[in-house]
């Protein structure tokens, strides 16, 4: 919402400076977004009189001008074709900042001639795109006067951001009311006198339905004018509209715009001769069409309020008028529409039709319903004053919406909610200045004015009082402590996120954050088939149209982008949500990662190695360890089909899946245009059960043996298909009391090992607790191990 300072002062009697007005507006919640103050921008720029303009001795296209600046005559070299003796222009002295060229002027010599300033074009002042010549001011412009004043730009333009609840401040008068309440001057009442009509209106307002306070258009007022003279508006009106960026059209149209921006009262005028019969407020019929004032034809339906005559629709209620019945330069008879339209329905229609207009903007925020009466009076006065002619009697249809509401404001409520101790007289004074009728001595009863539909309860009254009294009175009170000691912020389950993140970063991976959505084709490759509930209805584009069923596709893309930028061997992870379905439980938290290509790059100290399934397994297990998963996890085959079927696995606790790991399926790697293998993992952070709550944090007792452990190696020959884990478990369980660990340290197949077999070597640790083991005891355990492994896997000890 834009307005000028002088416009504001028509509604506000004040001596406040521009800065005071600016600060007060912002602190009232009418945030000042910008002030265009030409007087400030063009400070030092004056009206200059060209005493003499002669050809530059050394340049065909330049002139040397002697300019009277009112405080002396200076020489300026000018390149404009229209620079001539006797003209008046805008003179910028040396040292000025020229906005259009973003330069500071310097006194200089141009081709040997002194130039101590500049005569400016419109473009150089950023007032328009015109750069055909320098500004040619009227002959009566006073030499030496500030240029901004001579250009009619000495009125600062203020732009404020109006929040959706403050429709009443979409008119200058409403803004002035807020400022007056805050002590920045006195609100001037505006003059809207009832003009008695001299004839009966030949066009009457009617309703196509029984109008009720909650109808799409509860009430409409209007009247007929005859013998008016349309044409260009007077200067003051044109200037006012131009200052806030509106294009003057004709005096009748300009009047409607003026009242819209001045009093937040949108109006419409029809060319009465183009109407047939009475005007009716009704809902559109399916398929009805209207060529609107924006030049577009709209097809309507019964949800849209329209204004129609006996023949056709001529306006979209609260949004826009029709082209065919609009006023023209030669219009002599007009019909005025001053209506109230329901905000919610107006907004819905506007959205449906895709029309933004100044009228819609206001109606959908709720205008003053009573304005149908004073708005008609104001419009009448302006039309008669600026266009002449005579007015008919008023015509009206419908009933006044029910805007009267009273709320109680308890005396302690302002302080209770805001923390500010507002004196009672200020509380009532502020509400009164805002237009509330206040009764009582605290508690008070406040009657809401017709222009404040946003006030719906006591809390709103508190806001009105405190924002006008000043939010800077709010005390700064630290929250009292809830308990002597602080509790953990995050639950053990929530802490798994930082635990996983730190574990993976410590393993050399870089954390990424990627979109929650991805392309549907990718999502479907990663398990989102048939999940229509996860497809966005209004995505930004097709590459972001489905909620991700896995984080991996995003990380694969990120890895490929990095490789394309020459950043090799990316190792990326993300800890975030993925979506199984659209329910709250369908969102699961996953730590996922990819490592591409080299695990060990070329280096002077040893061989290189590419990533493989065991890198992914190590990452997954590291995350599980970091989040406190139990250690009786098992790995098996059966990862989803985006992994390499032979080089991937599932980590489970019992039957529950904790994680997937493996090399990515070569098809997916190829699709991503990646050249080397990709090791990937997905750990389901919520899958491992939380440890049982115990009374204390005490660990179980640590029992250390004083006796040396013994390590024995066994090399087994076993069928190639036998899983190592099965063999190790068999060995481990051969003597649970004595064996504390068993691990694979060698795997061999090839020469010396029969086809279809492999050699698996394990180291078993024996830990006696009672005494040192004898050779015979070690021998006995070894035999038990060999027998147990043979029984479980068919393995034989390698000779």
């Amino acid at each position, binding site marked *: 919402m834009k307005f000028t300072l002088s416009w504001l002062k028509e509604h506000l009697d004040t001596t406040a400076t521009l800065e005071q007005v600016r600060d007060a507006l912002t*602190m009232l919640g009418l945030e000042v977004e910008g002030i265009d103050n030409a007087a400030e921008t063009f400070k030092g720029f004056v009206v200059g009189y060209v005493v003499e303009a002669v050809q530059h001795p050394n340049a065909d296209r330049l002139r040397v001008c002697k300019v009277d600046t009112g405080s002396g005559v200076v020489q300026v070299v000018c390149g404009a074709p229209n620079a001539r003796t006797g003209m008046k222009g805008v003179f910028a002295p040396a040292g000025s900042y020229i906005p259009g060229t973003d330069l500071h002027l310097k006194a200089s010599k141009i081709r040997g001639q002194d130039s101590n300033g500049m005569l400016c074009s419109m473009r150089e002042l950023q007032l328009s795109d015109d750069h055909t010549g320098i500004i040619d001011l009227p002959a009566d412009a006073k030499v030496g006067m500030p240029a901004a004043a001579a250009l009619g730009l000495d009125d600062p333009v203020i732009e404020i951001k109006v929040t959706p609840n403050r429709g009443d401040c979409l008119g200058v008068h409403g803004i002035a009311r807020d400022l007056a309440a805050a002590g920045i001057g006195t609100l001037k009442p505006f003059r809207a006198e009832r003009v008695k009509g001299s004839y009966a209106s030949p066009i009457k307002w009617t309703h196509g339905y029984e109008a009720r306070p909650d109808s799409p258009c509860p009430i409409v007022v209007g009247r007929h004018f005859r013998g008016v003279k349309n044409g260009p508006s007077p200067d003051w009106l044109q200037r006012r509209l131009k200052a806030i960026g509106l294009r003057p059209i004709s005096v009748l149209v300009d009047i409607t715009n003026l009242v819209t921006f001045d009093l937040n009262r949108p109006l419409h005028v029809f060319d009465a001769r183009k109407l047939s019969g009475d005007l009716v407020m009704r809902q559109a019929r399916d398929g009805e069409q209207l060529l609107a004032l924006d030049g577009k034809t709209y097809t309507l339906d019964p949800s849209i309020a329209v204004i129609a005559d006996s023949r056709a629709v001529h306006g979209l209620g609260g949004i826009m008028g029709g082209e065919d019945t609009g006023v023209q330069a030669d219009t002599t008879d007009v019909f005025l529409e001053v209506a109230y339209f329901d905000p919610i329905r107006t907004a819905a229609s506007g959205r449906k039709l895709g029309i933004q207009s100044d009228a819609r903007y206001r109606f959908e925020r709720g205008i003053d319903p009573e304005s149908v009466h004073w708005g008609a009076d104001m419009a009448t006065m302006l039309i008669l004053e600026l266009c002449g002619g005579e007015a008919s009697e008023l015509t009206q249809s419908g009933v006044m919406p029910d805007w009267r509401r009273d709320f109680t404001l308890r005396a302690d409520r302002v302080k209770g909610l805001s923390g500010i101790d507002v004196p009672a007289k200020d509380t009532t004074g502020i509400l009164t200045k805002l237009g509330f009728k206040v009764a009582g001595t605290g508690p008070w009863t406040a009657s809401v004015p017709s222009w404040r539909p946003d006030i719906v309860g006591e809390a709103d009254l508190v806001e009105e009082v405190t924002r006008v009294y000043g939010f800077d009175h709010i005390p700064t*009170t630290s929250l009292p402590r*809830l308990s002597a000691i602080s509790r953990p912020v995050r639950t053990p389950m*929530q802490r798994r996120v930082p635990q996983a993140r730190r574990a993976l970063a410590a393993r*050399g991976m870089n954390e*990424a954050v990627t979109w929650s959505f991805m392309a549907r084709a990718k999502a479907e490759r990663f398990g989102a088939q048939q999940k229509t509930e996860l497809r*966005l209805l209004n995505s*930004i584009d097709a590459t972001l149209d489905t909620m991700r069923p896995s984080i991996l596709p995003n990380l694969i893309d990120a890895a490929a982008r990095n490789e394309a*930028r020459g950043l090799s061997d990316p*190792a990326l992870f993300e800890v975030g949500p993925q979506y199984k379905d659209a329910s709250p439980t369908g969102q699961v938290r996953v730590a996922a990662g990819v490592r591409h290509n080299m695990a060990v790059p070329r280096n002077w100290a040893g061989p290189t190695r590419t990533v493989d399934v065991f890198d992914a397994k190590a990452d997954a297990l590291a995350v599980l360890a970091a989040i406190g998963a139990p250690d009786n996890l098992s790995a098996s085959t059966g990862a989803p089909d985006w992994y390499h079927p032979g080089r991937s696995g599932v980590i489970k606790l019992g039957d529950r899946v904790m994680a997937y790991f493996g090399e990515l399926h070569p098809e997916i790697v190829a699709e991503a245009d990646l050249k080397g293998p990709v090791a990937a993992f997905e750990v389901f952070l919520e899958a491992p059960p939380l440890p049982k709550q115990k009374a204390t944090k005490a660990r179980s007792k640590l029992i250390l043996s004083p006796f040396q452990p013994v390590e024995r190696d066994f090399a087994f020959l076993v069928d190639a298909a036998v899983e190592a884990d099965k063999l190790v478990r068999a060995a481990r369980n051969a003597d649970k009391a004595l064996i504390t660990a068993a691990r694979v340290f060698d795997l061999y197949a090839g020469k010396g090992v029969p086809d279809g077999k492999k050699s698996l070597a394990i180291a078993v640790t024996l830990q006696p607790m009672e005494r040192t083991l004898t050779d015979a005891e070690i021998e006995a355990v070894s035999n038990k191990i060999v027998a147990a492994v043979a029984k479980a896997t068919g393995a034989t000890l390698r000779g």
Partner: protein
Amino acid sequence: MDDLATIRNEALSAVESAADLGALDAVRVAALGKKGSVTGLMKTLGALAPEQRKEFGARVNQLKGEIEAALEARKSTLGTAALAARLASEKVDVTLPARPESRGTLHPIGEVMDELASIFGEMGFTWAEGPDIEDDWHNFTALNIPPDHPARQMQDTFYLPSRADGTPMVLRTHTSPVQARTMLDKDVQKMLADGGSLRVIVPGRTFRIDNDATHTPMFHQVEGLVIDRVTHMGHLKGCIYDFCRAYFEVEGELPIRFRPSYFPFTEPSAEVDIGCSWKDGELRIGAGESWLEILGCGMVHPRAIANCGLDPAVYQGFAFGMGIDRIAMLKYGIPDLRSFFDSDLRWLRHYGFSALEAVR
């Protein structure tokens, strides 16, 4: 006599000239071994007269001691030299790089979330979460944004197919639906009924249809919610003030300004500015010539409280919402929002944090 002197001279000079420990041992054997020259002298003692034996024996013993000492000294010298030679031969070029190992990093968003946890944790807040895919009621209606409310246009919402019962589904446009989910929680309601105070922060992903230089369709917010019977705007201001000072590490005074604003789910509503200045293109938070908008907040709207099953005549409190990406940009001088989500390794390494970056 001559024998003794000769043996002495020969042995001592052999010790001196032994080049390594092996040669030295040969010298020891030649002199003191079973068939050694000194041992040979000892063997001659038995043939001498008792007086001569005593005198000569003493001399031989002295010689033996002398040679042993020389051997020991030489052995030590040679050992030191051998160690020095070995150390010299083992020298490497320490300017060679360590074995390759990549340095992992944490994303600034997660880092800031951890900072939020620690600062608000000190103030007695706990961490609450809710789903990204929300139903229309929690995202809007519960928060006093009924269908067709103009405020719905303030937020460009991503929609998903409606539930079977017709409930519209959205990607949450703010973290505020978790306010509703928290207040509706039976345990929370009981805690409040028992006179307790609800203090939660809700960090998380949020979504709006916006995709330009300064907007991304996904971003991060943190919501704060305090509900009890007495908390007022002064506490809200104190909470934001304390947070900003801790987060931006402002030692001195921090100017803070509440400006009236509008959010459907708070009343009164405010936008908050904090003092700042710019020096050499770097933002300094603290007393300065400018204001920086930091968040929106207000007292929870009585209708929102009622919608969530609490009596607004009894309970009141405040809520605020802040952009996590934004405060990360402000604190760490990250110029471009879009780059947060691009996963460019150069960016992740430059703006990222080390794995064990201490969280206060």
